[in-house]
Every structure is written in structure tokens, then in C-alpha cells.
């Protein structure tokens, strides 16, 4: 088992998780390749995301818009801003060709906003591209385990 690689990808993914929990969105936007896609599907078995309905299917333009909305103060569902803390663990490298690394991991996120504490559990897949001693995200797919259930507003980035 390549523990050195797991340590590298875990460090990168933990950094991303920390950015999102602390609202460092400008830096988060820079963590992507220009063709990167951030996807939150509905159907847990789906692989053709472009031709199906998702919760989010963000290219670079939509990621920027999403970030702008979260910080704009124009949206009553994100003012006050939800507080989140996420744990990411159970990293497994699925493929590695020296340039691209595909990683699957578990994410448990707690959200508190107004008077409600919520819990979202997800399987998260990353396709990472090596870049300057670190990585950029080419694809992040967040499969919520309750994605087919009725959900309430998610006013942050999973």
C-alpha cells in the first residue's frame, strides 16, 4: 500500500475541507483545474451526470456564482451563514497514473444554523491532478447517502 500517496492526498483533501468549513472560498476556487466539475448527484448509482438532474453540477462559472451568492448577504437562507464542521476519512486511492489520482473517501458533516443541527454523510470521490508539488481538483462528486430523500436547504458547499 502506497501510504506516502495516501498521506499526500489526505493532506490536500483535509486542506480543502478546512477551507470550506472556514469560508475561505477565494482560495477554494483556485484549487480547481479550469475544466473542473463539482457534482452533487441525486441518484447514487448515476454516472452520466451531464444528462441527468443533480443537486449541483458546477463548472468554473457556476462555482464562482455559488461562492458569490453565499457571501452576498442577498440570500435569506444563508443569512445567518450556517456553521459547518466536517470530518473526512477512509481514504482509498482507486487509481494513480502519476499525473491523475482518483481517491474515494467518507465525509461526515455537521451543520448548525439558527436552532437546528443537521448531519450529512457522504461518499466523496475526487479526481486530482498533480500540480506544482500539490494537486488541483478536476472532479469532486459528493454522493449523500440520503440523496434520494427529501432534503432541506444546503446553504454551503458540501
Amino acid at each position, binding site marked *: 500500500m502506497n501510504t506516502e500517496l495516501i498521506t499526500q492526498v489526505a493532506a490536500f483533501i483535509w486542506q480543502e475541507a478546512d477551507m470550506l468549513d472556514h469560508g475561505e472560498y477565494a482560495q477554494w476556487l483556485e484549487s480547481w483545474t479550469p475544466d473542473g466539475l463539482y457534482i*452533487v448527484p*441525486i*441518484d447514487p448509482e448515476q454516472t452520466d451526470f*451531464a*444528462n*441527468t*438532474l*443533480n*443537486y*449541483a*453540477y458546477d463548472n468554473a462559472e*457556476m462555482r464562482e*456564482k*455559488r461562492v*458569490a*451568492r453565499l457571501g*452576498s448577504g*442577498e*440570500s*435569506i*437562507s*444563508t443569512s445567518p451563514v450556517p456553521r459547518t464542521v466536517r470530518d473526512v476519512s477512509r481514504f482509498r486511492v482507486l487509481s494513480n497514473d502519476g499525473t491523475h489520482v482518483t481517491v474515494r473517501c467518507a465525509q461526515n458533516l455537521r451543520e448548525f444554523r439558527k436552532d437546528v443541527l443537521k448531519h450529512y454523510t457522504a461518499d466523496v470521490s475526487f479526481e486530482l491532478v498533480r500540480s506544482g508539488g500539490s494537486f488541483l481538483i478536476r472532479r469532486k462528486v459528493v454522493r449523500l447517502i440520503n440523496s*434520494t*430523500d*427529501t*432534503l*432541506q*436547504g*444546503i*446553504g454551503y458547499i*458540501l
Partner: protein
Amino acid sequence: MTNKTDAQQALTLGDRVQADRVHTSLYTDPAIFEQEMDKVFSSTWVWVAHASEIPEAGSYKNTYIGVQPVIVVRDRKQKVHVLLNRCRHRAATVCEGKKGKTNSFVCPYHGWSYSLDGALRGVPHPESYADQLEKGELGLVSLRVEEYAGMIFATMKNDIEPLVDYLGPAKKWMGLFMKQGAGYPIKVAGEHRFRFPGNWKIQLENTTDAYHFPLVHKSFLSSVDKQTEEMLDFVGGSGYVEDLGNGHSVMVMIPQLIDLEENLDAPIPARFAELAEQLRAEGHADQEVRRIVRAVGGSGFNLNIFPNIACSMAFFRVLQPISVNETEIHHAVITMDGGPQAANQARLRLHEHFQGPMGFGTPDDSEAWERVQKGAGAGKDLWIMLNRGLAGEKPTPDGRASDVSAETGMRAAYQQWKKLMTA
């Protein structure tokens, strides 16, 4: 039971719906909710499915009429049945899962099996009944079903008027809405489902409420191009709301987008320039490109069909009451069945942009509705004001109309509510 004040006790149900206001207890009283399940949802036509959701023989969808679980299923002869999802033996549901395909319904508890039309087919170990089981009397309870423009409705009230009479002038708007297939059949291609802690009528009102749009959806408007933002700046514009009778209403926000097959020579909006280019490159003729692109953007109106379905610009809004202070909403995306992939992708992305728990619109609506329910906990004797646009309301051939941000559609729905609840 809730503690009612003396003033509330004195009000009859009919008193609680006035021409220009409704009583707060319509949002908060569990006893009224119980009555609604019977007198509204069990006494009128209720939308259950779009035909594309059960495309083939054996296709089924599980849904609810009010709070009662029902199965919508297409049999081998393509006839649609709506069956109570309850085994006639000891009541277990005979079908689970949102959608699927089956040959029969088999109860998991004791194995009673039913055919797709609900008839009781087999009972394991029948000898104990000594040939006295009336199988013909023990089929799944089958409801009256009628369909118009691909929309399937069912009713528990057998002697109700035909669906087409119930829909009345709403039929014309359903026909216009289906033009967003651009010549292809309309297909429901998934949905966003969410719940909010509030009464179902708060959502019913919202589909005919233009007034909230610039405020609640400010963050959405900031995320679209200038041209789209201007198009959506309809409050104060030349649109209108029309009461179509039987609780139905239409809110026309963008009059130039009433008929998607007209004005095909109008310039293609900048946001669709790339899509138009792609369609041309795929070999679609100019008129066809214009027709498809115009359909992708959706209709310029919301049609509210009482009590639980709306044809809302580019999607179906389905409303499902859960309890007096909880409601489930489905926003079903519409695509062109067999249409150009690029056009359907554009529709999916537009839907994701506004709708769903991570959309730029729905969560803000949901927050506003939640706050309505919370606020309705204060001042139990106060009223919900619905008098906006009343002064300018004028008769039309189909009903009555007023300006685009008038509460005419809400008044229409509550008058139908009153008619059913006091019948």
C-alpha cells in the same frame, strides 16, 4: 386539540375565508388539516403523475392523495390505474419505492397477490377460507382516473364532474405549457424533493405570488446576465394574474412568452447563443433552432391547478401535505423526449440553477415559508391579508384578472377551499 380563543370558537370555517383575507388558523389548526384531507383532497381531482413517469406496461409510481398512499400504474393494455396502496387482507402496502416496473403487486406479509389493474389474483393456502373468500370483492381499491395533456389525475369522489370540466379554462394554459417540448413529447426527467416546516397552502399561494420574486430571489437575479435579469423584472410590468375558476389561476409574468411557438423571429437571447450555435452545427434548420431554444427557456407563466399541481415556467411543482405544519414539494424537471441532448442538458442545468436544496432560488423560498409558519404562531386572531390587486380586478371571459403581483390567484384558491370545506 389546540386551545382556541373565544373569538376563534365563534368563527365557522366559512367565516374564516373572506373576500380579501383568510384566518391564521387555516395555517395552524390540526383539526382543519384533518378536515382538509377529507373535504379537499378526498373530494376533488388530485394530480398523481405525468404520463411520461409511467411510460410502459408495468411501470408504476408511488405517490399520495392527501396523506393516503396510492400506486399509479400502467397495465398491459396501457390503461392507467390509481390504486390504494393497501393490501385488502391486513393493510400492508403492496408496493414500495418511488418508481419502477413490475408484473404484479404481492403483499410481503402473507403473499396475497394482485394484478396490475388491482384484481386479487392469488391467496396462499386458501383452504382455511373454505371457499368463502370473496376474491372479486377484495381487489386493491381502484380510483377514478382521467388524463388531460399528459397529466394524470385521480379522485376518491366517484360522482365528481369530468376532469375536463373541472379544469375548464386551465386546459388552454396546459396546452400552451406543453409547447416547451418544441415538438418532442414532454418527459419528466427527475425531480428535486424537499420539505419545509409549514402549511401546504403557503406553497399553494407562492406559485401565484410575483410580489416576492425581486426580494426573495435577489441572490438568484444577481447570478444571471443583465438581459435575463431584466426579463425577470416583471413586478410592475404588463403581466397579470387571472382567476380561472375552480381554484385554478394563471400568473403571466412574461407576456411575450405565453405562446412559445410565436415570435420565433425575435432575437435569440445572449445566454442561449452558444446553444443555438451548437444546434445549428448539429444540422437543425434555423426555425427549428429558434423553436427549441425558445422552449428551453420555459413559458412565461405559472399555472396553478387546485389543489396540488402547478405548471410553473419550466417545471411541474407538486405539493404534498404531510401535517398541518409540514409540506413536501417536488420540482420535476421537464425535458424533450428524444430531443437534442444539448437542449436537454441546458434545461437540466437551468433547473439545478434555481431549484432544489442547493439551488439559488428554492432554499430562499423555503426560508420565507418557514418564517410564515413561525410568525403565524403569533396573534392567533389575526388574518392573512390577500387584498393586493383587489381594487384593480376586472371580469374577463374566463374569470377575473388583475395586475401581475395581485393576490387574485390566492383568492381564487381560497374560494375553492371554502366551497369544498363547507360543502
